[in-house]
């Protein structure tokens, strides 16, 4: 530094001036120089050495008038050690060091000044890092709402999603919601914590055993025939309901042992009065040809998932069987839903019953009616029976054509010579334009109806007749009775059945269907399809059912025809149980719905898939597999001191507090809570109630609600190790530590066992919590959850597909972790983790069952790795098409660890209403946007990373190859040309491996430590990255290196 000063000074002294002055100056300079020599050990000055440089080169774009990229340098606090802008200075230094600033085309800072600037920044940063080494690190953080749920669940042994009523946790700058900085504890939070705690201890502790309700309905053809009216099941009607007639049902109330109890139906009030009438079975939302009551029970074909289009979105898949319970059901507690079912041979595939007709094959001219050869013709006179109809001049005419209520009915009998497809046509009088007359033809064998409005446009005058094609139907050889019905003044002359010509497209596709049906039938004979049971609980609404699935999908593995009882467990508080309003009398109110369907999904109504037989459903709630339940006996544990209330209470409180606080609790703290109990015990008639009050207080304590992250003075090693145990288990389980972790910590040997503990924690199913939570935050899978995909545009995007797409990401990531694969597998894999449902969605053949499986993929499938997964692709779309900007930002931030420039203020979104935009894809709109000068700079850096995904639409599917705007060839800012996602993956793995590795490390650290990374962590991060790379980039290596790094251990 002093050296540079000298240069400056020499320059200054070479000014032309009188000698005396020069001498004087020399003298002064002498003083100055000697001073500047001593200044070598002093820090350079911001005002003197740095600010002028910034002013000259930076403030024009990052100053008071303009803030390019949202960066303003003139107001930053130059005190890096104590100030608040250290991180911003750190970023500025990085950008300058990378040579990105000042940008090309702007005056560049000369070497000396540059060194002056960066030297100062570097030295100040070093000081700041030293200063913060000990103090800035993790601070205590509140449990996230998920962690809160998990913790309370483990503590109380009750599986209620306690946290879901809490206000949503915020997201930090880096998109993480488990950051201490965003985890607030507002008044509202605390009020909730108390409220939840009260409800939770009420659920855990019992003073008496609640009455269990247990209902069973058996289903079989006519099983209820001999049951007296007052003891029959109910019939649940209402708008488009499909109740199963009580004649096929036998409803019973069971006792604890599962035996039927006598119901006093004459009792006017009481729990079980009329309860049988309030039990029933409904099939609402099911297609009638997909289920059937038989002697053995009710047959259900494979379900077709319902579309998410209101109001039909409030249905379950078709067909589904619903056990309906009105009024008498609890709204709290565990429950079990038992379904007795068997896998039975599939039904014979039905063929499409009819097809629409394109145009009439019969023509009418002034000379007469010209029907194709072989047409079968029935004239008005050939009718078998007539109703409200007379025959006039060869026409069927209504007796009262003016009466809008009157329907004309006429029956025919048609002889068909061979099995074939026939187009049915009707010749009739000309119908006036405003007269919308519909005519229907009903066949009894096969049972089907064709319905079509009669042609209103008249052909050329003077023809007074017209012909309407009604539709195309397959008929077997033989006699087919049929009936026509119509209203109004139309006169019917002839009915024609025209056999389709050999080359007719409908005939061709029909033959294909027949062949396909045959194959399916053979498959069914092999029983290759595996039916499954899936269940949901909900409440009846006017237009459907608001429901949520619970428990897992159960495979039906018993031999065909063998009944099994499938038990599904759930917790009523977690599900949309109706809030009973006893004042409400309408027929649709207060109905609890338990739905079950065959989860071996098929895509369309013509495909029966596999078939199941259900002959009994049973609901039991609240359900207690043991009494008293674990939740109760864990708190009121067996103790020799049980008879001594005071001693026993102290034991209870100590034990509960130690588990809740995840720490040994000093006696004086226990005392505080014990004194509280002594104080309030007499406010309550029952002992347990007083205890509840203490436990509520424990659950409101910050020691329960916060993870202690601090290394404060005076903590014992054991305390520190216990904190480490918590840190570790909340990192890898999002869950409190288990017995073993506690034991290791208390023995002081946890630090020696970190490596094996990491492996054990990862292998434990609780690591699912980590995978889900980390994926949601790192990969922003929550965006997929929040996205409303346009289901009219993407009809295959059902709720089951949506759910499974998120599951794919979780299963894939967990698979990589469990099997300790390379972290680069996350970018590029030659396999996918999917189930049958997703395989059908993606169009990958040969996958069976609901389990997620490793399925090898070939390059043409264009799947493999996180960046080809639907959860990312749909989550970063506009719900219809892909969104290149969102995808680009995601790829840069999440995968490459770069921060793309933020959009400048006041830039409007691409306006979807702009008529120009309506014609263009988002990619094309962007191209226009990019052309404007002010936008070009940023978008040149950004867009290529998103445009490579253009092949994938808003649902995450590949666009058909014919779609325009498939250009996925881009030039990256580095100049590299990449064509499509496959090349992008190669590029990342080969050329950007360092960036991805660092990005993953940083994101994982951010998650593990619950705070954003900063300049002070750079060195540690670098060490982890280097170790990881040296050890071969395995996922578990990453976790282990991270956990054993000073950042995690301190």
């Amino acid at each position, binding site marked *: 530094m002093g050296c540079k000063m000298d240069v400056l000074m020499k320059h200054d002294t070479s000014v032309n001036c009188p000698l005396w002055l020069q001498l004087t100056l020399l003298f002064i300079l002498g003083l100055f120089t000697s001073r500047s020599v001593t200044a070598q050990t002093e820090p350079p000055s911001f005002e003197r050495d740095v600010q002028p440089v910034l002013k000259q080169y930076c403030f024009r774009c990052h100053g008071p008038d303009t803030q390019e990229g949202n960066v303003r340098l003139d107001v930053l606090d130059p005190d890096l050690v104590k100030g608040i802008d250290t991180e911003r200075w750190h970023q500025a230094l990085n950008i300058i060091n990378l040579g990105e600033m000042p940008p090309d085309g702007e005056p560049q800072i000369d070497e000396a000044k540059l060194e002056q600037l960066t030297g100062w920044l570097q030295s100040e940063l070093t000081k700041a890092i030293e200063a913060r080494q000990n103090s800035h690190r993790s601070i205590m953080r509140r449990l996230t709402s998920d962690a809160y749920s998990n913790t309370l669940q483990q503590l109380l042994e009750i599986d209620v999603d306690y946290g879901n009523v809490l206000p949503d946790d915020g997201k930090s700058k880096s998109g993480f919601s488990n950051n201490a900085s965003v985890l607030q504890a507002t008044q509202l939070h605390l009020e909730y914590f108390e409220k939840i705690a009260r409800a939770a201890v009420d659920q855990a502790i019992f003073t008496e055993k609640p009455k269990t309700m247990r209902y069973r309905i058996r289903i079989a053809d006519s099983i209820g025939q001999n049951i007296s009216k007052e003891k029959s099941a109910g019939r649940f009607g209402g708008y488009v309901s499909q109740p199963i007639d009580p004649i096929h049902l036998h409803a019973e109330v069971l006792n604890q042992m599962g035996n039927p109890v006598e119901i006093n139906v004459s009792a006017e009030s009481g729990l079980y009065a009329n309860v049988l009438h309030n039990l029933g079975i409904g099939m609402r939302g099911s297609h009638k040809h997909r289920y059937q009551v038989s002697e053995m029970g009710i047959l259900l074909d494979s379900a077709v998932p319902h579309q998410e289009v*209101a109001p039909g979105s409030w249905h379950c898949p078709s067909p589904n069987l619903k056990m309906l319970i009105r009024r008498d059901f609890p709204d709290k507690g565990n429950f079990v839903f038992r379904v007795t079912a068997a896998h039975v041979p599939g039904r014979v595939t039905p063929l499409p019953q009819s097809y629409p007709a394109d145009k009439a094959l019969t023509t009418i001219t002034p000379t007469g009616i010209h029907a194709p050869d072989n047409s079968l013709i029935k004239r008005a006179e050939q009718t078998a029976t007539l109703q409200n109809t007379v025959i006039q001049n060869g026409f069927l005419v209504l007796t009262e054509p003016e009466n809008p209520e009157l329907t004309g009915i006429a029956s025919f009998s048609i002889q068909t010579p061979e099995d074939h497809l026939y187009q049915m046509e009707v010749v009739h009088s000309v119908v006036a334009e405003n007269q919308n007359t519909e005519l229907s033809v009903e066949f009894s064998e096969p049972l089907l109806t064709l319905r079509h409005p009669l042609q209103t446009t008249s052909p050329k005058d003077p023809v007074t007749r017209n012909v309407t094609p009604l539709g195309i139907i397959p008929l077997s050889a033989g006699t087919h009775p049929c009936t026509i019905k119509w209203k109004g003044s139309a006169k019917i002359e002839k009915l024609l059945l025209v056999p389709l010509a050999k080359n007719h497209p409908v005939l061709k596709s029909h033959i294909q269907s027949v062949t396909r049906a045959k194959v399916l039938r053979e498959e069914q004979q092999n029983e290759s399809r595996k039916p499954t049971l899936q269940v949901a609980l909900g409440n009846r609404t006017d237009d459907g059912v608001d429901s949520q699935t619970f428990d897992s999908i159960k495979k039906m593995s018993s031999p065909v025809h063998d009944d099994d009882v499938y038990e599904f467990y759930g917790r009523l508080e977690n599900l949309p149980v109706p809030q009973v309003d006893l004042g409400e009398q309408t027929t649709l109110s207060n109905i609890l719905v338990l739905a079950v369907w065959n989860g071996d999904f098929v895509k369309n109504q013509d495909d029966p898939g596999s078939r199941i037989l259900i002959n009994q459903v049973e609901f039991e709630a609240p359900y207690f597999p043991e009494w008293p339940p674990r939740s109760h006996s864990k708190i009121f544990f067996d103790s020799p001191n049980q008879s001594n209330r005071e001693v026993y209470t102290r034991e209870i409180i100590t034990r509960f507090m130690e588990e809740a606080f995840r720490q040994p609790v000093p006696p004086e703290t226990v005392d505080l809570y014990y004194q509280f109990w002594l104080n309030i015990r007499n406010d309550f008639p029952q002992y347990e109630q007083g205890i509840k009050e203490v436990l509520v207080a424990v659950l409101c304590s910050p020691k329960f609600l916060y993870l202690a992250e601090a290394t404060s003075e005076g903590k014992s090693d054991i305390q520190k190790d216990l904190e480490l145990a918590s840190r570790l288990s909340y990192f890898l389980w999002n869950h409190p530590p288990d017995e073993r972790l506690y034991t290791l910590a208390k023995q002081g040997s946890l630090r020696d066992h970190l490596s094996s503990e990491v492996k054990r924690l990862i292998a434990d199913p609780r690591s699912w919590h980590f995978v889900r939570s980390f994926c949601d935050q790192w990969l922003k899978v929550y965006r997929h959850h929040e996205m409303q995909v346009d289901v009219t545009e993407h009809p295959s995007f059902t709720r089951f597909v949506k759910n499974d797409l998120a599951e794919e990401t979780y299963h894939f990531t967990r698979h990589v972790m469990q099997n300790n694969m390379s972290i680069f597998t996350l970018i590029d894999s030659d396999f996918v983790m999917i189930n049958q449902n997703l395989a059908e969605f993606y169009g990958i053949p040969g996958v069976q069952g609901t389990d997620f499986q490793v399925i090898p993929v070939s390059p043409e499938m264009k799947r493999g790795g996180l960046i080809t997964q639907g959860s990312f692709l749909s989550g970063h779309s506009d719900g219809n098409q892909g969104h290149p900007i969102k995808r680009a930002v995601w790829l840069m931030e999440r995968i490459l660890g770069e921060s793309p420039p933020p959009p400048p203020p006041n830039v409007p979104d691409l306006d979807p209403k702009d008529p120009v935009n309506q014609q263009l894809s988002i990619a094309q709109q962007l191209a226009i946007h990019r052309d404007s000068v002010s936008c070009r700079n940023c978008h040149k850096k950004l867009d290529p990373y998103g445009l490579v995904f253009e092949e994938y639409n808003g649902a995450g599917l590949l666009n058909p190859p014919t779609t325009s705007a498939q250009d996925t060839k881009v030039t990256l800012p580095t100049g590299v040309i990449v064509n499509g996602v496959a090349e992008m993956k190669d590029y990342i793995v080969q050329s950007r491996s360092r960036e991805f590795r660092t990005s993953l490390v940083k994101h994982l650290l951010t998650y593990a430590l619950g705070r954003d990374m900063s300049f002070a962590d750079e060195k540690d991060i670098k060490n982890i990255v280097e170790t990881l790379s040296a050890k071969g980039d395995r996922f578990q290596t990453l976790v282990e290196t991270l956990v054993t790094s000073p950042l995690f251990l301190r």
Partner: protein
Amino acid sequence: MAQKSWHLDRRTFLSGIGVSLTLPYLDAMAESVQRQGNKDIPKRLCCVYFPNGCGIPDQRQHAEEHQQWSWFPMGKGSNYTFTNTLSVLEPHRENISVLGGLSHPRSRKLLGHIAGDSWLTGGDISGSNYQNNISIDQVAARQLGQATRYPSLILSVDGGIGYQSRVSTLSFDDAGKPIPAEHRHREIFERYFSPQGEGTSKERRTQLQRGRKIVDLVLEDSRRLSRQLGKHDQAKLDEYLSSLNRVEQQIQRNEAWLDTPMKDFSASHINFEVDATKNPDSYIRSMIDIMVLGYQTDLTRVMTYMMGREDGIGFADHFPRLSCDINQGHHAMSHSTEWKNWSVYDAWLASHFAYLLDRLKSVTDEHGPLLDNTLLLYGSACSTTHNARNYPLVLAGGQNLGLRHGHYQTFDDSIPLTNLFVNMLNALDVKTERFSDSTGVLPGNLFS
């Protein structure tokens, strides 16, 4: 401070005549407000709903009927003219704004009746699951309710919650669950207005005391913890402690109310004995009288009132027969083309809203007419039959809250109704940037 409690002989009001109270006006409430150091004027919210939408004859097909019987006024801006339907609101022209074109985007595709569930929430009940959210009144009550005896009053003609997709309440809690509405006039009166309602307050007192004891214990424990913590952790714990202090203060405020006698008032004009199945007019009026009394005594500052349920459910469906001599139920009417009938009934409904405005204007507290500090929203969740767009809406009152009335304004589909809710909450000093699916605030200068 008034020491004398308000007394009402039970038998006196059972007779239906009521009593007139002439006790001196001593404002316990004002004092209590001062105790809390909050001298701000009370700001209030009131939302009134009618079901089944409103009559809007098609402008082209039924031009003449449109002029006469359309719910929305003719013309725009300040020069609009009421049709027969809303002409009853003419005297309040300066205190109201008619709003057209607004709706909840996520409910637009739904059957209009279901959209009723989301009128005050803007919640997403269209998707695969019914995900309703908190209603605007409950957001307001969270804050406005801190200063009053009760956070809110939730009223409806039918009471209870009904069932999902056909609720009988307008209010939904934080978790999006319906909050049961009350509908028995006398019970409401006895429960909320009588300090004699000892059962309730005793229970409440116990509940509050329990809460307070727990807070005290946790505070004590946390303070001990705080001493062991480093500087940064202390800052984090301070956030928790200050929230805990606020919880304690709120408990104290709530406890203070239990000892504060009701502000004196007269209930002589309220007829509690009306049979809704015989005289719907008086029935609704009596509820409105109770509501006005509630505001007058600062019992609460937030109320919702549902004047009937969607889809012909509940006995409000018979009101047209009973009150307007129309031989049709309300729901059936909404499906027919008897425009005049529908309009006559719409006018009847609006006359009750007009009565509410009359009363709020004439009744004053120490801050002037109640109306000037009360923001009212009147309307429905569909326009014409089952069409969940273009809700009929009237915003009224709140002169002191910065409202600039006197206009008929229309908005296009790009503005979600919840933008209005954001405006409303901010006008009530409930600082809000977003509500449900809002995208900003309403364009224009309805709110200054």
